[in-house]
């Protein structure tokens, strides 16, 4: 026995050396462990079979009996058989049956039958199965005990996966939300977070289009609180902070927990300021081996293309206006010529099982999702193996979680859709000889878009490996130590090839190929120690830990030109020099890394299950920050009062549960800034001429900021959880106020200017500094109402509504003064050649939200069809300058999700509306292409001729193109049927049809009102596009359409 504890001693060596752990903990654990003869005592303390209701003396007595008396009198036994079924009568396999008060037990077989030998004195059997309510059934004199299990709708909700552990929902004092697999959106889904889109109040997940290769939606929780840094929540997968979402598929996910407020997220300290999304993957369950299969076929189509003139309308309009228009003799719908009906299919196979000591779950998921644009698409294979081994009477638990993804992406150049909008519809797609038709002088806005998407190869392969090992040991009763180590390797390898035959925009008549490779390695090791204890009515849980994470990225790029087309991008060295000997080869490589270290601590205390308290503290260090500010401390405190536990409510027939929570915490943000953001950097910066040749020149490319530090968010949250009327109405209500200070902001400087606390000299035109303050405050309501619950017929409706108000409080501090008189504007229209260079519609201004539109207010058209603007200081003549004014924000007033779930017999029907109200959008395509002056040189939107714009009047940015983009979407619909009569062969056989994006109710004139909310997070948090981040709500002219999909799916288990 004593030998077994050799390893724990090693462990303690490590623990003892950890910066966090203090001597008292070591000394608490060590003396007991050192004495191997205490093994029995340990066993007593840790035995799990002891019912907790027993007194300690009883425990000792019984255990002494069991362990000390080796030979006992064999008792009289009898056999009990039976069948366990679910509420619909199907046999339930894998149900565990235990004789109450003993270790004896069995599990049901594939048909739900079981057989169990029990001691004669046994009185009660306990039936339990995950997802169902456990039942104690008296045996009496029966030899056959049949049981019908009742699904436990609340069972998964009862626990919340908080950082570094779980907590009973009743005890949680922070603002959290949980979505379990059952509630996931159905359909063609290629990103795990799409599964929970709209399901959590305040969590906004928006993909700006339906491009399957762009499967990284922008995520915002409780508003945007960063300027130059990332505003996305931290993703934690099975305890790995910052893990890549690609390492899981929706099918592998058990549950998603959202930690909304600072008190919940504070355990992630410097990375928790935007909230935390905790993804937990499925584990195997003890019992019988289970094989699940889920598959679907989905059909996707484009919902709406821009309303341009058809070829016939084009000809007719020219005639009507009496202008000559080019008639290429064909009738081409350029959008249709690029688009296709995409048939996707997805297959997921999971195998799980195990014993009470060892469980496993392995899965393979394959998705093939062609794009609705030809020659584009996405396919991926995910493999996952989750192993859990318990030992030493369950005191030791080892988990190995490994996943691997292989993905292929074929990209679409969105500019093709811009060209499709403008290209004359009477031009053909192909010439008579079968080659692509092209104009003599193609432009990016006017060329054959089909040639662009067909002739140019643009693809990438991605690999994501995540290996995660966890070990936890209960050293003493209630005292657990654990290590969580993970290694993630993300590999991206892309290729781009333009054949010499390409005659579209920017062709050189020569082939061009390049390859780009990026590898990101993320190593994490965390150690924690926790202690659980109950003293009388008090219950205490203490957690302390240490984390160390190192992220390194390496990149390599090579390009060459003029080689035979047959090589594609596979033989770059075959290129030829230019006729005059000039070089066309390009090579680049680089590498960067970041280190994050954290020390964390948490105390949960509850008294009488009524009064709850959680306190967190985390001290974090990051290599990204300036030498003066590398470490930060992030505390939080929250309290809860379960009023329903008080005597005056305890027996209330109305109020079943009521809890008030109040929390305050400080969290930090550092995601999305460069790894060396605080340092003065020299980089290769072009070449300088010398002696008739050139040599590499080096220059300062980044200003130093030794004061650079975290953004810090202080959030107060007041929340109410309630269950009323016999639990038929459940919900929560949250009020929060979040002040984010020391915003990471690329502050503009004039070169040569002295800046910062150390009076450094600016060497480039901006510095990443901590300037300014943003406030987000809001209300969130989640309500679930069991409308009908009548045996066969159930109707449950769930509504979540969130309101967030975002405001930039300040952009100035002691060292940096923002020019509020001439504020900076962001957000290009996306048309380099459309006459809109330097036109930025969104302003960053104190007192206004992020995403504030700022341009001239359009009043009317004059008799010549010229724009008339409101005079705001420029006489109405300066729409791009002095006449600009504040014109609404691209942030919604309210977001909502409304889910309805009906069950009738074997049918279930689910439909889900998602909406966003009150936001404005800049309709880029209308701004540029609803101008009659572009006709007949280019095709135009049909609206051009109703717009009132005079012939030859240039398109101009103004309020005319800023529209209300409120919408409500029937986002998801699912009708399932549980096939009866097959339960002998398969379990849970189900077929379903589902639809995604069935319709949208909106007044917005563009193809879809749901636009980007900001730049999405780069894999592993590289710097995002600052300009995109600060300009949500712009409908781009280079776009990818949105799709509607219908899915036919089947799921079975064996």
């Amino acid at each position, binding site marked *: 026995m004593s030998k077994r504890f050799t390893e724990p001693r090693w462990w303690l060596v490590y623990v003892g050396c950890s910066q966090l752990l203090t001597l008292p903990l070591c000394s608490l654990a060590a003396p007991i462990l050192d004495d191997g003869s205490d093994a029995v005592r340990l066993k007593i303390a840790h035995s799990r079979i002891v019912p907790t209701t027993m007194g300690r003396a009883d425990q000792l007595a019984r255990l002494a009996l069991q362990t000390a008396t080796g030979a006992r009198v064999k008792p009289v036994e009898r056999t009990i058989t039976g069948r366990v079924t679910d509420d619909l009568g199907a046999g339930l396999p894998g149900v565990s049956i235990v004789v109450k008060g003993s270790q004896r037990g069995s599990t049901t077989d594939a048909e739900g039958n079981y057989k169990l030998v029990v001691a004669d004195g046994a009185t009660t059997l306990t039936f339990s199965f995950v997802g169902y309510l456990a039942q104690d059934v008296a045996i009496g004199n029966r030899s056959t005990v049949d049981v019908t299990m009742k699904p436990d709708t609340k069972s998964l909700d009862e626990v919340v996966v908080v950082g570094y552990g779980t907590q009973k929902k009743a005890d949680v004092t922070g603002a959290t939300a949980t979505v379990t697999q059952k509630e996931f959106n159905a359909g063609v889904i290629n990103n795990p977070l799409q599964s929970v889109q709209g399901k959590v109040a305040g969590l906004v997940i928006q993909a700006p289009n339906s491009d399957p290769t762009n499967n990284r939606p922008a995520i915002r929780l409780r508003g945007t609180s960063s300027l130059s840094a990332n505003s996305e929540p931290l993703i934690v997968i099975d305890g790995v902070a910052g893990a890549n979402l690609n390492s899981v598929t929706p099918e592998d996910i058990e549950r998603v927990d959202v930690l909304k407020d600072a008190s919940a997220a504070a355990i992630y300290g410097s990375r928790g300021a935007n909230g935390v999304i905790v993804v937990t993957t499925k584990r195997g369950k003890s019992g019988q081996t289970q094989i699940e299969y889920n598959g679907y076929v989905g059909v996707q189509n484009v919902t709406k293309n821009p309303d341009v003139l058809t070829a016939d309308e084009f000809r007719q309009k020219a005639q009507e206006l009496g202008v000559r228009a080019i008639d290429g003799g064909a009738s081409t719908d350029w959008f249709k010529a690029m688009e296709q009906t995409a048939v996707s299919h997805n297959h997921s196979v999971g195998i799980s099982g195990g014993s009470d000591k060892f469980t496993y779950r392995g899965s393979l998921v394959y998705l093939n999702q062609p794009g609705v644009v030809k020659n584009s698409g996405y396919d991926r294979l995910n493999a996952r193996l989750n192993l859990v081994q318990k030992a030493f009477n369950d005191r030791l638990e080892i988990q190995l979680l490994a996943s691997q993804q292989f993905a292929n992406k074929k990209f679409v150049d969105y500019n093709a859709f811009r060209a499709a909008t403008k290209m004359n519809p009477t031009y053909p797609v192909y010439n008579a000889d079968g080659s692509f038709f092209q104009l003599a002088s193609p432009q990016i806005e006017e060329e054959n878009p089909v040639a662009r998407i067909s002739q140019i190869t643009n693809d990438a392969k991605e690999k994501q490996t995540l290996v995660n090992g966890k070990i936890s040991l209960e050293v003493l009763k209630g005292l657990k130590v654990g290590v969580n180590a993970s290694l993630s390797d993300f590999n991206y390898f892309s290729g781009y090839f333009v054949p010499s035959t390409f005659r579209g925009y920017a062709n050189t008549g020569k082939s061009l190929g390049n390859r780009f490779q990026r590898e990101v390695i993320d190593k994490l090791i965390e150690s924690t120690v926790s202690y659980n204890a109950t003293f009388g009515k008090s219950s205490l849980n203490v957690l302390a830990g240490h984390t160390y994470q190192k992220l390194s990225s390496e990149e390599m790029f090579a390009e060459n030109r003029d080689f035979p087309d047959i090589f594609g991008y596979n033989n770059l060295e075959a290129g030829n020099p230019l006729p005059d000997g000039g*070089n066309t080869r390009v090579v680049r490589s680089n590498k960067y890394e970041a280190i994050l270290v954290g020390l964390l601590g948490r105390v949960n205390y509850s008294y009488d299950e009524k009064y709850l308290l959680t306190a967190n503290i985390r001290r974090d260090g990051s290599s990204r920050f300036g030498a003066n500010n590398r470490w930060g401390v992030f505390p939080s405190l929250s309290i809860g009062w379960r009023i329903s536990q008080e005597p005056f409510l305890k027996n209330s027939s109305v109020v079943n549960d009521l809890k008030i929570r109040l929390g305050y915490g400080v969290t930090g943000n550092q995601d999305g800034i460069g790894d060396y953001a605080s340092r003065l950097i020299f980089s290769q910066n072009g070449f300088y001429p010398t002696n008739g040749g050139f040599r590499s020149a080096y220059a300062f490319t980044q200003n130093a900021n030794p004061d650079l530090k975290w953004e810090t968010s202080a959030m107060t949250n007041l929340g109410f959880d309630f269950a009323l009327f016999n639990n038929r109405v459940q919900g929560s209500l949250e009020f929060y106020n979040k002040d984010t200070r020391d915003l990471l902001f690329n502050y503009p400087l004039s070169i040569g200017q002295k800046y910062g606390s150390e009076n450094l000299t600016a060497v480039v035109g901006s510095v990443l500094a901590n300037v300014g303050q943003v406030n987000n405050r809001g209300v969130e309501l989640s309500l679930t109402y069991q409308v009908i619950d009548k045996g066969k017929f159930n109707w449950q409706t769930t509504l979540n509504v969130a309101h967030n108000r975002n405001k930039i409080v300040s952009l100035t501090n002691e060292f940096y003064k923002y020019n509020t008189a001439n504020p900076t504007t962001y957000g290009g229209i996306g048309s380099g050649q459309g006459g809109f260079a330097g036109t930025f519609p969104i302003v960053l201004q104190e007192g206004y939200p992020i995403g504030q539109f700022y341009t001239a207010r359009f009043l009317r058209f004059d008799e010549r069809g010229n724009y008339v603007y409101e005079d705001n200081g420029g006489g109405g003549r300066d729409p791009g300058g002095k006449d600009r004014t504040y014109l609404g924000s691209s942030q919604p007033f309210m977001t909502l999700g409304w889910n309805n779930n009906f069950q009738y017999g074997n049918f279930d029907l689910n439909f889900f509306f998602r909406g966003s109200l009150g936001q404005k959008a800049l309709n880029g395509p209308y701004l540029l292409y609803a101008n009659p002056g572009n006709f007949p040189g280019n095709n135009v939107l049909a609206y051009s001729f109703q717009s009132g714009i005079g012939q030859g009047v240039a398109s101009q940015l103004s309020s005319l193109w800023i529209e209300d983009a409120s919408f409500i979407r029937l986002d998801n619909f699912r009708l399932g049927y549980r096939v009866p009569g097959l339960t002998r062969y398969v379990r849970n056989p189900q077929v379903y049809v589902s639809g995604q994006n069935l319709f949208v109710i909106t007044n917005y004139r563009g193809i879809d009102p749901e636009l980007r909310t900001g730049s999405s997070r780069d894999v592993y948090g590289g710097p995002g596009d600052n300009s995109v981040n600060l300009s949500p709500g712009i409908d781009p002219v280079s776009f990818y359409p949105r799709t509607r999909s219908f899915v036919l799916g089947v799921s079975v288990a064996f």
Partner: protein
Amino acid sequence: MKTSVFASMLGIALVSQACTGLDSQVFNQASADKFPASADELNSIVGSAYGQLRFAINAVRTCNEAASDEMVVPTRGPDWFDDGRWQKFARHDFSSVTPPQINDSWNYAYTGIAQTNLYLSYLNASTLTIPGKATTVAELRTLRAWYYYVLCDFFGRVPIITESSPAGSVAQSERKDVAAFIESELKAALPDLRADITTETYGRMTQGAAQALLAKLYINSEVYTGTARWQDCITACDAVTKLGYKLNSDFFALFATNNQSNGANVENIIVGVFDKNYAGGNNLTLETLHPTFKAKYSLGADSPWNGYATYADFYGTFANNDVRKNQWLQGVQTDKNGSPIIYNDAVTGETNKTLNFTPKINSIEKAAQNEGVRLIKYQVQSNLPGNSADNDWAILRYADVLLLKAEASLRLGNTANALASLNPVRVRAGLAAVTTLTLDEVLAERGRELTWEGWRRSDLIRFGKWEGNWTTKSENFTTPFELVSRDPSRRVFPIPATQLSSNPLLRQNPGY
């Protein structure tokens, strides 16, 4: 097995404890505390100071030309509105926000100044033994003087920041003090600068460059300081001549794609060195030509942008026998095979139109694609991999120096000297020498010789013609327009708003 898993994880745990520090390594860039470490590395960063010089081709040139009588960028239907910036240039409608090229010019100059200041302090502090260190220092000071020259000319009152400026924001100096600073810097640098006109000194700041800049400073002295210094200008011009600079016999060779090696360096004194591979940014061809010229010249990536053109009356100042008239594209244009180019005009809705560049333009708000004659002074380079061409940008030429001397001499009443300086420039252009000369004729000659080279604005101001009436002439526009302001305050640009916000000591120029 369990034990080994356990043990190996413990191993990881132990190893991790060895590296809890936060010192991440920098790989592909250099932290300033580790670089430069050798004389070569130091030269490589000093060299990058020259990288900035060539970008005078962008905003600085545009500010000098697009508001003058020799360049116009009309809006062409859906193209070239760009927030109204081009029309604002044409109308002299400058504000602290637009056109943005004003702020770009400020940044151009101060980026160069910041670089040279930093490199000067590095050189001062460096203990490395670098051959020719004194010359390097002198070059950097001359380079910096050029950037201050741009600032002095554009904005008048600007802050003077040097490598030894104290901490904190710096207030503006008076324009005359900025001019005095430039003069003293150039004079201080002169003795250590190289004097030879060779491959080694090509693209670098030499004695010729410093003297030519002094000549520029002196010719504008009355504008900058209120005191004319015509004689000083002549002295500086003569110093340039003495160094061996001369007119290149072939005018167009000065702007050829191989102008770094075809002997043009006897005339091109200060150049911005461009290269299709190593020093990108020369898009001159694209700015002015019609898209159909991509096929004609087998151009690189982009089809030309069809923007910059000139005024009909300016085009009219070129005599037919003037070699320099060949820099313009006017009339029907032909393709590779000599057939007329056919295109569709998105502005007018006309299709299958023959491309015919006409001098007259409909209006600044709406010009057809073919309106306005185009400049191909810089040789059009075919078969490029991208948009950047090889032609080096001539910032200051000896022909300009000769014309400066002619102007200064004339202003001092010495017509003979003036003619002796100006006539060689005319003769090279294939024109007859003149025997009489007026200031107006000097300005006209400058226009013809230095078209679009980035000096027109300052010339017009010096000759009192900046508030001219070219925009109102019916020969130029079917629908003419007025300048927004003829106030002398428009002779300097406004201090950009961005700069006002980052330096609280800056004061806006009067009138803005």
